[in-house]
């Protein structure tokens, strides 16, 4: 039973355009959400996070939106750059546990 779902396995966008990566979750106890970026043969790298008390967090080109009623979050990257091409993982935790629950990831390709 997947508690964090990234239903699209891949996304391709043109350089300079916006990339929107989606994530859905089922566990209403999740209170903190993170996005990680992963290049081949490397470990995931933390990108941005959001607490459940907020609905938006922005860091440079990256913005994460959280819709708690829909149990949905999204990562916006604008403008997209070829170096953003990687696998992006959505992850979540609940207050009672320190472990992260990850989605399966989405492969983003940014075309020059």
């Amino acid at each position, binding site marked *: 039973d997947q508690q*964090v779902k*990234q239903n699209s396995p891949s996304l391709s966008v043109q350089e300079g355009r916006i990339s929107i990566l989606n994530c859905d979750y089922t566990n209403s106890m999740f209170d*903190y959400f*993170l996005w*990680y970026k992963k290049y081949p*043969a*490397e*470990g*995931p*790298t*933390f990108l941005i*996070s959001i*607490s459940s008390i907020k609905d938006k967090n922005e860091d440079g080109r990256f913005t994460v939106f959280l819709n708690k009623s829909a149990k949905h979050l999204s990562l916006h990257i604008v403008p997209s750059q070829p170096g953003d091409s990687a696998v992006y*993982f959505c*992850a979540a*935790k609940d207050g009672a*546990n*320190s*472990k*992260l*629950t*990850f*989605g*399966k*990831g989405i492969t983003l390709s940014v075309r020059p």
Partner: protein
Amino acid sequence: GAGVSQSPSNKVTEKGKDVELRCDPISGHTALYWYRQSLGQGLEFLIYFQGNSAPDKSGLPSDRFSAERTGGSVSTLTIQRTQQEDSAVYLCASSFGPLGRQPQHFGDGTRLSIL
């Protein structure tokens, strides 16, 4: 560098053998996590160490898996009598404290292949 270090980076072994995977966390990080990523899957939590507290072993898939953390620093994940389904990338992460607002920092993983 100052990041999480894992060794070996690759390990190929025969079914039935035991393997040990090592993780050196970032200096000063009190929390240490093990995850694994099987082909086409997300990261799956295995075990979590925080300071001197008893580890959270709730993610270990069977009693063939065990882990220890000596001196609050280096950790070793041991898989006994390996099976082909154990083939995966095993990732270690550390954080400054229990993950609330402190993100986990990952090593590059150990790619384990069971023949």
